[in-house]
């Protein structure tokens, strides 16, 4: 198939960007979306044009590095990561718009690459269990009901891609934050720091310039790992509980 892409080109954080149109020919439907960009980049290189910068690494949907807005949708038309999207999802002759995540807390570095460092800083503010190396007790001394373990796992499956932020009209990072609160809050090991965790992480979230959550649900709809919206209710409950105890 032959397609047309319109791609956001921006030289660096300081310069202004614009959409630029390119044709890509002989696209196979078995190609991944990023392989289509590879083909385009080879073409650009050979014609002395600057190849398009985009983040990616595992190309298996697990590292969370990739992520662009495709035709207005974070990660494109399927509920999956950009790297796991295949060209069979598009028609021959399609015109595809490709843009970076757009959010105040994720400044553009170049073309489709943004800075998601804010997510790491939210984790630093409490997204962990303090378990110094070597201090652990025998693993089976901490039984965890299977249901809780399974739910903790489902929240822990967040890949930190940022699609939730890009999809949210408020640019909120609440789904990402809530996924971590839920993962750790469901486990017995996570209880001692439960209050300080939620307070610290939410404070950092706001400090980074993410917007507030108004329960629209676009985040969940775009999330490639299916992190459910009720994690955010859980976060809110935990936060109210902690504040009531005067932990802020």
């Amino acid at each position, binding site marked *: 198939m032959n397609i047309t892409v319109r791609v956001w080109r921006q030289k660096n954080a300081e310069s202004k960007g614009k959409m630029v149109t390119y044709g890509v020919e002989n696209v196979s439907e*078995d190609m991944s979306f990023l392989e289509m960009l590879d083909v385009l980049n080879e073409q650009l290189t050979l014609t002395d044009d600057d190849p398009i910068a985009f983040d990616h690494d595992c*190309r298996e949907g697990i590292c969370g590095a990739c992520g662009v807005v495709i035709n207005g949708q974070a990660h494109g038309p399927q509920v999956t990561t950009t790297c796991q999207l295949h060209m069979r999802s598009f028609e021959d002759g399609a015109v595809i718009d490709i843009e970076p995540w757009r959010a105040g807390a994720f400044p553009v570095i170049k073309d489709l690459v943004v800075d998601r460092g804010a997510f*790491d800083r939210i984790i630093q503010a409490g997204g962990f269990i303090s378990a110094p190396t070597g201090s*652990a007790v025998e693993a089976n001394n901490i039984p*965890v*009901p299977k249901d809780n373990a*399974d739910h903790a796992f489902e929240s822990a499956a967040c890949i930190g891609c940022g699609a939730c932020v890009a999809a949210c009209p408020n640019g909120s990072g609440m789904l990402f934050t809530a996924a971590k609160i839920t993962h750790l809050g469901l486990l017995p090991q996570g209880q001692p720091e439960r209050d300080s965790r939620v307070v610290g992480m939410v404070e950092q979230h706001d400090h980074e310039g993410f917007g507030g959550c108004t329960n629209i649900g676009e985040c969940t709809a775009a999330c490639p790992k299916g992190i459910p919206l009720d994690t955010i209710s859980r976060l809110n409950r935990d936060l109210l509980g902690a504040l009531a105890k005067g932990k802020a």
Partner: protein
Amino acid sequence: MTTTTSPNVSEQFHAIGPDIADTKAPAGPIEKRWDDRKFNAKLVNPANRRKLSVIVVGTGLAGGAAAATLGEAGYQVKSFCYQDSPRRAHSIAAQGGINAAKNYRNDGDSIYRLFDDTVKGGDFRARESNVYRLAQVSVNIIDQCVAQGVPFAREYGGLLDNRSFGGVQVSRTFYARGQTGQQLLIGAYQALERQIGAGTVEMNTRHEMLELIMVDNRARGIVVRDMVTGEIETHTADAVVLATGGYGNVFFLSTNAMGSNTTATWRAHKKGAYFANPCYTQIHPTCIPVSGDYQSKLTLMSESLRNDGRIWVPKKAGDERAAADIPEDERDYYLERIYPAFGNLVPRDIASRAAKYQCDDGKGVGPGGLGVYLDFAEAIERLGLPAVKAKYGNLFDMYAQITGENPYETPMRIYPAVHYTMGGLWVDYDLQSNLTGLFVAGEANFSEHGANRLGASALMQGLADGYFVLPNTLANYLADGPYEKIDDSHEAVVEARRAVEERIATFLSINGTRTVDSFHKELGHIMWEYCGMERTEEGLIKAIGLIRDLKQAFWSDVKVTGVNEELNQTLERAGRVADFIELGELMCIDALNRRESCGGHFRAESQTEDGEALRHDDEFAYVSAWEFGEERPTLHKEPLEYEYVEMKSRSYK
């Protein structure tokens, strides 16, 4: 039995140096060696730790765990990774699980059995002392990870669940659905972020190490490029740890992440660090087959699928019928037939080669005949669809996403792909390379797995190195510090920086006609063809010639666009590919020298009558540690001795 290789034909390509006499493992009963080493290691008083600094390159399981633990212990740590966040290190992609000798199943497992399995699985090319230690600390790893909140799979009673993995007969693999690596890495990442927040670790993301700094014969620092601004920075410390992962991308197509590279280890090699067993690569039997020449990487389907999936090909060569139309009695479940004791669970090297042979015989399925079936029909009937979904759902989804086929209805097609590299920088028992002050951990070093790695043991090794081994052995080294402070005007620092800047300037000035990827693909073809699943003397010699030509072509005709002072992904790749080309040549020389078959290294000239790998313990029971030379490399042998596990040929029949 065929062994018709000409002796020493490899010696036209390399020199031979003195053997490596001492690996620093304590003597005495194997169960006590690690305790002895820890007891005799020098300690650093907590108040002095703040004055000691360590550079840790890599934030995968090995580097992430090490940086977090060292920071927590009070050392000043500087951590580096090339991704935008330490959480994205390639360990994140590991699917199947992590081994530990907990014996929770009461099925006869023990530290000794895990040790024994790993030594045998490695085809008697790993060090007993190291492997035993690995088995010992495996149990602490699970405890540590659970304490951090890693959500391993559990049973209804709330206790930890296990599964079995290829090459062993006990159930000792801990897992978190098909995302074990992700969950373990998130655990290490969170521990690391906690230290970053506490100010003990300084994190440098999007920084790529491009050179090692040696001062007075000690590793004292690194040169990195800030991948956003292009700035070349130098960092110095009392010790340097490389935990930069494996070099499988030398084959271009592999299951590794796109950015996985050898640059950090290769640069250290060129500064004097020995590169050990570079030819030992693992080809994983269950990957999604190649679909076209635009393909950028291959996707692994976890080995755990072999627990319930049955592998088969049509009995008749060239059978074009759809899988469903081939009746049961016209299918050949060849692994079950040839290896009745282990069936579909034979070790990876054996399963991969068996698939290759079926395809070579024209029985392969799918595009180009490069695939075999992995069939779940029987498992779905036996366990029910919901149980199969619960166990493998995410893998099936991934398969469907990539191929557009539904594996619940039609069997998956799989084919072997490069997956893991057992070779790496040579290290002693303390994980210190032959360069004083340079430590190497995780897949980046050569240790523990010998010539073949058993499933679920790389995660174990990465975390063992990072959480439990390095913090002890590195402290022993640091106890003699702090070393003399080095500033940026030191001659060695200036020189290392200049070398990096010149190299970058060269890449940008060649302005040839070929893209970086075109060279990488060509290298990959050469490696896969001549240094892949089956190697021959003739093929390897040919490959060396081809790689030398490729290197020349690269340095005269590559096209790298843009400038250094910006985010420039082409420039990043150019540096990696240049190093892969040189490593590829060394891999072929190593493979040529090793005139035996062992583990993942199969020399066609050295096989038994029924086509199994034939080792030559009398001649080759050694680690090949290569010293860099401008003209040619020098081989140092580290003899391997087996006091506990009797050297036998592996048999999985």
